[in-house]
C-alpha cells in the first residue's frame, strides 16, 4: 500500500531548513581546525541537507539542484585530497607536509589558507558526494 508522499508543509519547510544546514556545514568545515567540526562532520551535515531536499522533492529534483553528478563531487573531493600533497612533494618534503599561506585581505584581516584546509575541503566534498550517491541512487532505484 502506497500513498502520496509529499506535502506542501514538508516542501516549504525543507526550503527553510536546508540553507541553514548548508550554512552550518560550511561553518563546521572552516572552523573544524579549531573547534569541533571538520571535513567529515561538515560533509555529513551538508549531505543531510541534500537528503532532506531529496526526501521532499525527489531524487531527480535533487540532481538538478546539485547540477553536477554526485560522482563528480566525489572525484573532486578525492582530487582535492590528493592535491594537498602536491606542495610538499614539489618542495621535496615528505608527502602531506602542511603548508600555510597567509593571504592578506583588504582591511586588517588575513585569510589563512593551508594544505590541511584544502585537504579538509576534499574530505567534505568526498563525504557529500558519497552520501549523495547512496541516497539519490537508492531513491532513484525505487522510483
Amino acid at each position: 500500500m502506497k500513498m502520496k508522499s509529499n506535502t506542501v508543509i514538508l516542501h516549504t519547510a525543507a526550503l527553510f531548513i536546508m540553507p541553514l544546514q548548508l550554512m552550518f556545514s560550511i561553518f563546521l568545515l572552516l572552523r573544524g581546525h579549531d573547534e569541533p567540526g571538520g571535513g567529515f562532520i561538515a560533509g555529513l551535515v551538508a549531505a543531510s541537507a541534500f537528503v532532506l531536499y531529496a526526501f521532499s522533492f525527489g531524487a531527480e529534483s535533487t540532481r538538478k539542484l546539485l547540477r553536477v553528478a554526485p560522482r563528480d563531487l566525489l572525484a573532486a573531493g578525492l582530487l582535492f585530497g590528493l592535491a594537498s600533497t602536491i606542495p610538499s612533494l614539489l618542495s621535496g618534503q615528505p608527502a602531506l607536509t602542511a603548508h600555510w599561506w597567509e593571504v592578506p585581505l583588504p582591511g586588517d584581516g588575513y585569510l589563512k589558507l593551508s594544505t590541511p584546509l584544502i585537504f579538509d575541503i576534499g574530505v567534505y566534498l568526498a563525504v557529500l558526494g558519497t552520501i549523495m550517491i547512496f541516497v539519490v541512487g537508492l531513491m532513484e532505484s525505487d522510483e
Partner: protein
Amino acid sequence: MSSAVVYPILLPLLAGALSLALWRSVRWQRTLGVVFNAALLWASIWLLQEVMEHGFVTMEMGSWPAPFSIVLVADVLAAIMVVLTGIIGLAIAIYSLVSTPRGHEKFGYYPLMHLLLAGVAGSFLTGDIFNLFVWFEVMLLASFALLTLGGERAQMEGAIKYVTLNLFSSAIFLTAVGLLYGMVGTLNMADIAQKVAQVEDPGMLTVVAMLFMVSFGIKAAAFPLFFWLPASYHTPQVAVSALFAGLLTKVGVYALFRMFTLIFTQDVDYTHTILLWAASLTMLTGVLGAAAQFEFRRILSFHIISQIGYMMLGLALYTPLALIGGVFYIMHHIIVKTNLFLVSGITYRLLGSYELKDLGGVYKHKPWLAILFLIPALSLAGIPPLSGFFAKFIVIRAGIEAEAYVVTGIALLVGLLTLYSMIKIWAEVFWKKLPEHVTNTARLEGRIKDKHNWAFYVPVVGLAVCTLIIGLNGQPIYELAEKAATQLLNPQLYIDAVLGGQQP
C-alpha cells in the same frame, strides 16, 4: 628519506581519482589504466632499487617525527611485494583491455582496480598499525565493489559471504589495534615493537596477538578461516579473480609476516606453534578442497588456500631459511596464480565455460596456450625447474632442518595433490577431446579472430617468463628473499630505520 616510498601509493590513488573524474570516457580510463600501472611498476622498481641501496626507505608523512606521524616504511620484503603489485597491476591492466565487459568498464571497473592496488600497496608500505587497518579497508571495499560488479546471482551470493566474513575480520583487527594501543600507547609498528620487547610479563600481548592472528588469518584464508574465498573467488569476471587470487590473500600473509616477526616475537613457542598447525591444515584442507572441484577457477581458488599454507609454514618455522622460503613462495605464487586465472579466462573466452566438463581440445588447437598453462600449472605443483619447485624446496628443506617432520610430510603430500589437480585441469581442458555437446567452437578453432587478442596473451606470456626467470635464474631472487628474511629476523634494523637514534 626518499620519496620513492610514497609513489606506489599515490600513483594508483591518483589514477583512481582521475578515472573517476573521467567516468564518461571509457577510452581515457583504459589508457590511464595501462599508463598508471606501468608507472606503478616503474615506481615500485625504483623503490626496490632504493631499498637495495639503503636497506630501508622510510618517509615520515607530514614531516612529523616518528612515532607521531604515520611512517611509510619499505624494507626488502615490502619493496618486493610492491614490485609484485606493480607487475600484477600492469598485467591485469593490459588483460582488462579485452577481458572486461563493457558494462563493467562503464561502471567503475578502472577506478576500482586502481584503488585496489593502492590499498594493497598501502598495506605493504605502511609502518603504522592503524594505517594498515585503513589500507586494508581500502583494499576490502575495492574488492567488494569489484566482486559485485556485474550483479549476477552467483556474485551476489559469493559477495555476501565474502563481505560478512571479511567485515568480521576487520572488526577483530580494529579491536586488536584498540587493545594494543591501550597497552602500549602507540601505533607506530617500530615503536610498538620496541616497547613490546621491553615488557616483562607479555601475557596480554599474546592474547592480542591471537586477535591479530585470527584477523589476518581470515584475510589470508588460513584454516579454518578460509570459507569466504572458495565461496567467492570464482564469481567475478576473470581479470578480477586473477587480481584477487594474486594479491589479496597475500596481503594477509604479509601482515602475518610483519606482525609475527616484528612485534609478536615474545612467545614464539606458543604463537608460532599455532601458526605451524594452522599452516599445515591450511595446506591440506585447501588441496583436498581442490581435489573435489570440477570447475577451473574453483580448483584454482582452493589451491590459493593450500599455497597460503606453505607461506605460513615459512613464517611458522621461523628459521632464516624458512622465512626465505616463505618470501620466495609469496613471490612465486603471486605471479603463478594470477597467470593461471588469466589462462582460465582465455579458455573461457575460447569456449565460454569454466566447467571442466564443458571444456576440452585446447591442446590440439592451441598448443601455445597449452604451454602457457603448463608453465604456471607445473610451477604451482612444484615441478622443477620452475619457480614453484624452488619455493617448495626451500620450505621443505627448512622444515626438515628444523626437524618438523610431520609438517614437512604434509607439505610434500600437498605438493603431490597439487600436481593431481593441475593435471586434472590439464587432462580435462587441454588433452581431452572437445566434448560433443560443446558447439560454440569457432573461437577455439580459430574461425573467429578477435581484434585485440594480443592483450590476452601479452600478460600471460609476461608472467610465464617471470615464472621461468624465477626458476631458472633463481639466485638473485633467492638473495632478495634472503635479504628480506634477514631483515625480518632482526627487528632492531627496522626499529632503528624508523625511529632513528631518537627514542622517545
